[in-house]
């Protein structure tokens, strides 16, 4: 079901070279993958409520009740955090959502504003 995107894996990044200098490895610490990111889905007047709920169920494997709750949050509050995790993981989810035609963005968990869904991805 998922759209796998091999971002960064297929372009032959030289790992050894990247970790050679202290300056660059400190950058690597800053972008450590365990800093949580949120996947936000935004409301739009086109996507069917049934379809959005279906995507949450079939892509994330959420039970129907949870998928409906998140879908209604998108619909009523304008946005909902539907998953969170490492940056690369939520980016992969975002591409999958774009594949389905849902309007999704990623954001750092700390910068989360309103509409917190509390969904565990």
């Amino acid at each position: 079901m998922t759209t796998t995107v091999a971002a960064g894996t297929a372009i032959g990044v030289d790992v050894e070279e990247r970790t050679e200098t202290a300056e660059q490895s400190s950058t690597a610490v800053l972008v450590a993958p365990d800093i949580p990111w949120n996947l936000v889905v935004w409301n739009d007047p086109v996507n069917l409520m049934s379809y959005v709920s279906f995507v949450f169920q079939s892509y994330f494997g959420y039970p129907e009740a949870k998928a409906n709750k998140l879908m209604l949050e998108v619909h009523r509050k304008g946005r909902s955090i539907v998953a969170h995790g490492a940056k690369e993981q939520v980016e992969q989810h975002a591409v999958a959502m774009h594949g389905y035609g849902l309007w999704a963005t990623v954001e750092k968990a700390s910068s989360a504003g309103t509409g917190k869904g509390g969904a565990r991805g």
Partner: protein
Amino acid sequence: MAKAFKYGLKGITGYLEPAERELLRGLIDDVVSMLEPREAADQDPLAALVGLDLDVQAPTDRALLRLLPNVMKDDDAGSLEFRQLTERSLRESKIGALRAAAMGLDRKELTLTQDEARLWSMALNDIRLVLAERLDIRDEADADHVHAMQDWSQAEDVESYLALVYNFTTWLQESLVQSMVAAMDRRS
């Protein structure tokens, strides 16, 4: 007249008149041609092979931007960098779903497996997103206004025709999603 998709013993089935199939083929072709990546002569073949597009920019066409949105709300540079890595494969997967739906339209019987139904629902959704941009649907009130157009005798100009086509594809997608949900419930 078309019949709504339903889930039954044969799986997910629907019925479309030849003219309705022709209409959907035309819409699919339109969206596919929007999504087909331009082939630059000086393009790096290796980059293209792995799905990289370092010359890519955020689309200026609103409909195309809706199909290929920015991944970050307030970070254009970050979104562009992500777009370079992912946009090409996203375009290709969308085209794949649209082509799968077009192939289904060539079959006599409209019987879909669950995976085909998923590709159809994605294709119909992208068609509706493009039509909605052309119809300038910006909020729920606009959507309700367009939704009120149900009578084909009202098709007097391009906009009313597009509204009717939009409503037809909405109805078709809704019945398809209901069938997919029924199929999913049966399976679990």
